[in-house]
């Protein structure tokens, strides 16, 4: 087992921040976290057993029951389903002897499903002992399992995914051109922190995780906090199904990420940086850590960076353990502190009290990369791309029903139609922008531009990073059910509207799938979804019902067709499937 680079803490961090690492290590070496280990850890951290267990049960890569010597996580996201999940699953079950969700009798293989592992361009894909295996089919699975049975290590036989960078702007790429290491730092260090803020303001760079909060504001607010201890955190918990841009950036552009974070540290007066890498990307950790160590070697991390007196900056990786909600910045903070990844209230903002209650900047991978690029190539180079009010480029992960899934770095302002054409989507029907929590669009809207402008007018579309194409053969209700199911599992579970709301909406969609829904049911979905949007605690619950609300608006005819229709229905009688309702009892018919 290689070192993930997460195996040390900064001297300012409390022991508790190490808990998630310890748990991950136990999981990997022993296959599960036993009662004995929980008691042991509780003693070590001086907390009750139940507190440790609470953390363990929150993350889906941590198990309370043995998972076998080799753990297989097969992606069951929609893209995987489209590309042949069922057959691959059957093949895994046949070859390993383990049914989905269990361990085979010999304790060799554990087979589990997991939502989106960031490989949507190369589905069906699975992680075996956290190493990637892509473009799977029944035969491939057979070979892989046979090799492992004969003693091969997944680390040796795994199939590292291609970057699949399909398109960069003709005017030149911002993110994927050759990156000359150290230049961005030299240029940034010529400026005062205040001047860097001004540059960022001019660049109009906004949070690329999808919230598009102006980066300069966040940085400036942190800079102004009077604290000697501040943190720069990179949110690399890319969990939104269909998104894989951060994977490609970390794989191919780690240097720009590191430099972006160093510039953040210089600007805000922070001496520590942490990259929170999602558990699914464990296979990227070693490579990323090698880059970080190289920066230490060059004197660009550590003490007195680049000869800048008094500027110290340390960087480490923190591995996640499988929880979509940890992409929410305050949940991410909780997770880093070795707790359950439950979002905080907005009583304080992270820039005031973030990690360890200290001022903290949290930005997405792409944001930090963009910062480094702005200082590497100059503001003008960045601003001449894109459109007025939305300068620069955006990386979009395209997947689903298209011939060329992969990474598209587009200039802001490109239309959806152009992007679909580039990706060779032949029969696009339902397009999901920014993943399940984003927005769905129909082909009537294909000439909408992708930009940061105009959020409320709904003329342009903002895109956090994913564009998933579904063709006209796909069952729209099934897609939406799958989304609801995803959110039902991924909700942190502490606020009522999100925990219960996703569950309730999933039930309604079941009704719709079974052809028993009425117009009133559609009205209910709309109204309940709006309750969730208005009253949920964090972005997860607020955005979870987006797709369903918009789909009902934009695909009204489709929904109408799926309703219960009958001519001889009495007023006031609700559609009801009697046969299904007595099916259990009918089993006792002699």
């Amino acid at each position, binding site marked *: 087992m290689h070192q993930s680079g997460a195996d040390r803490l900064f001297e300012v961090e409390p022991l508790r921040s190490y808990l998630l690492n310890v748990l991950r290590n136990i999981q990997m070496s022993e296959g599960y976290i036993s009662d004995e280990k929980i008691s042991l850890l509780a003693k070590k951290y*001086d*907390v*009750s*057993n*139940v*507190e440790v*267990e*609470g953390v363990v*049960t*929150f993350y889906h890569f941590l198990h309370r029951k043995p998972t076998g010597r080799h753990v297989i996580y097969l992606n069951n996201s929609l893209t995987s389903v489209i590309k042949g999940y069922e057959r691959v699953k059957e093949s895994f079950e046949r070859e390993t002897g383990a049914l989905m969700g269990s361990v085979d009798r010999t304790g060799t293989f554990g087979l589990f499903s997991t939502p989106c592992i960031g490989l949507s361009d190369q589905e069906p894909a699975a992680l075996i002992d956290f190493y990637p295996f892509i473009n799977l089919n029944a035969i491939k699975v057979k070979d892989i399992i046979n090799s492992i049975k004969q003693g091969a290590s997944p680390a040796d036989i795994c199939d590292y995914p291609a970057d699949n960078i399909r398109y960069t702007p003709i005017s030149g790429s911002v993110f994927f051109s050759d990156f000359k290491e150290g230049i961005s730092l030299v240029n940034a260090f010529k400026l005062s922190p205040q001047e860097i803020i001004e540059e960022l303001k001019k660049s109009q760079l906004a949070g690329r995780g999808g919230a598009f909060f102006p980066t300069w504001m966040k940085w400036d607010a942190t800079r102004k906090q009077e604290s000697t201890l501040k943190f720069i955190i990179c949110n690399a918990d890319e969990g939104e199904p269909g998104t894989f841009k951060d994977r490609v950036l970390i794989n191919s552009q780690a240097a720009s990420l590191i430099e972006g974070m160093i510039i953040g540290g210089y600007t805000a007066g922070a001496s520590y940086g942490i990259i929170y890498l999602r558990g699914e990307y464990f296979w990227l950790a070693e490579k990323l850590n090698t880059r970080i160590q190289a920066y230490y070697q060059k004197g660009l991390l550590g003490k007195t960076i680049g000869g800048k007196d008094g500027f110290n900056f340390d960087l480490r990786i923190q591995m996640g353990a499988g*929880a979509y*909600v940890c992409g929410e910045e305050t949940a991410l903070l909780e997770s880093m502190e070795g707790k*359950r990844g*439950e979002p*905080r*209230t*907005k*009583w*304080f903002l992270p820039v005031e009290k973030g990690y360890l209650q200290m001022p903290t900047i949290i930005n997405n991978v792409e944001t930090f990369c963009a910062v480094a690029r702005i200082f590497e190539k100059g503001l003008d180079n960045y601003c001449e791309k894109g459109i007025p009010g939305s300068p620069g480029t955006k990386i979009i992960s395209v997947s689903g029903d298209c011939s060329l899934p992969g990474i598209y770095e587009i200039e802001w302002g490109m239309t959806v139609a152009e992007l679909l054409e580039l990706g060779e989507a032949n029969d696009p029907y339902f397009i999901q922008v920014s993943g399940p929590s984003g927005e769905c669009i129909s082909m009537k809207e294909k000439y909408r531009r992708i930009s940061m402008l105009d959020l409320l007018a709904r003329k342009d579309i903002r895109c956090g990073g994913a564009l998933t194409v579904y063709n006209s053969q796909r069952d729209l209700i099934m897609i939406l059910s799958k989304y609801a199911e995803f959110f*039902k*599992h*991924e*909700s*942190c*579970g*502490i*606020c*009522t*509207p999100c*925990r*219960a*709301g*996703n*569950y*309730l909406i999933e*039930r309604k969609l079941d009704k719709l799938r079974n052809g028993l829904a009425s117009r009133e049911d559609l009205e*209910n979905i709309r109204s*309940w979804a709006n*309750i969730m949007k*208005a*009253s*949920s*605690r964090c972005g997860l619950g607020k955005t979870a019902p987006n797709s369903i609300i918009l789909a009902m608006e934009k695909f009204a005819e489709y929904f109408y067709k799926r309703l219960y229709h009958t001519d001889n229905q*009495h*007023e*006031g*009688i*609700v559609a*009801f499937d*009697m046969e299904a*309702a*007595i*099916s*259990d*009892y*009918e*089993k*006792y*018919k*002699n």
Partner: protein
Amino acid sequence: MAKMVTIEIDGLPIQAEEGQNLVYVAKENGFFIPSLCYYENMDPPLGTCRTCTCRINGKPGPACIEKVREGMQVEVNKADLVDMRKSIIEMMFSEGNHFCPSCEKSGNCDLQHMAYELEISHTRFPHLFKDRLIDYNSKRMVMEHNRCIKCRRCVEEVLSDDGKRVFMYMNRGNETYVGIDYEQEAKLSKEQALNAMNICPTGAIIVKGKIFSKPFGQRAFDLSSSQKNYGKKPIKLSRGAVMEKKIVATASLAGCFGCHMSLLDVDTDLLDLIELVEFNKSPLTDIKKFAHRCHIGIIEGGCSNDENIEVLREFREKCDILVSLGECSIWGGLPAMRNTVPLGECLEEAYLNSFTNDPAKSTIPYHEDIPKLLNRVFACSEIVKIDYYIPGCPPSASHIWKAIKNLLWHEEYSILYSEFKYD
């Protein structure tokens, strides 16, 4: 002395100390904002239950996580917000398995109290009937996971003497529950254990042996509302309609007939009733078949078998107004306790595996003449459209009588807090 600021609640200017909690300030000034996870001196506030959702400076959000600041504009009693808060409480009822009549905390339960305050007669959501276990393992406590609303109060507030948590969330998403640490629980003093039970806004934490310590009428939330003007708004204006004779039908489906018994408790008003209504199909008259169309049909009990569904559909066809009477009819009630267990298991337990059965001779009854059991108990509203709901187990006689007079002759009435009950 802290700085005073002026805020506006529903258009009324209010002076308050800067930084105070909005729920507190509102309460001090006579505004009722329902809340469950909130209680004073909790810093930072929990913000989990979302019951106190208001509109603050134009944006919806919970009042409990807002610090009062100059110029804050707060909307509390707008219709959409009242409905939203109601819906969140309803969600808790449909998500958990809340059988009020059999709950130790009934009458002292914050959740139930809030539902009374918001006059929730039924939930707009289908009940989810998720199977949850009850944890009896700890020394003195019972964790009744069916009733937990995951408010986090116990997680944050109940600590052992050495500062360790006794309660903690487990799992996530719809599988979330609050786990208890047996070792730490054993260390709690008697007072600390009782405090844990009291801090729980529902009946999820029960100290063994502490049940029904107070009779009806003396429990915390039996008699008076937290709102000054509760029930002051009369329901529907009287049109002074002529009290002409109306035809009524009633049925008891999967219920216990308790609601029909309660109907008889109308007492001396029964004499008026006889003058004003004629009963058609009803167990009270033993008329088996509808002789004419009825003005109103009153349904007790939910649907547990296919015959219940047939009867209910016939009522819908033959009655102008259909009323769900009592908890079973509204959402399944006590018979729905079986809904978290597969039907096969229920039948096998009852007919094959029980102690009194002779395994060799026992069989699960099945005959074309006996009604077929449904996979689960359905609420009447899942089968036909229901026009009105009268909650209670059973509903009080005066509540029933007032509601029916209102429906049939548009008589004005207002429901008293003490009449509105689920147990």
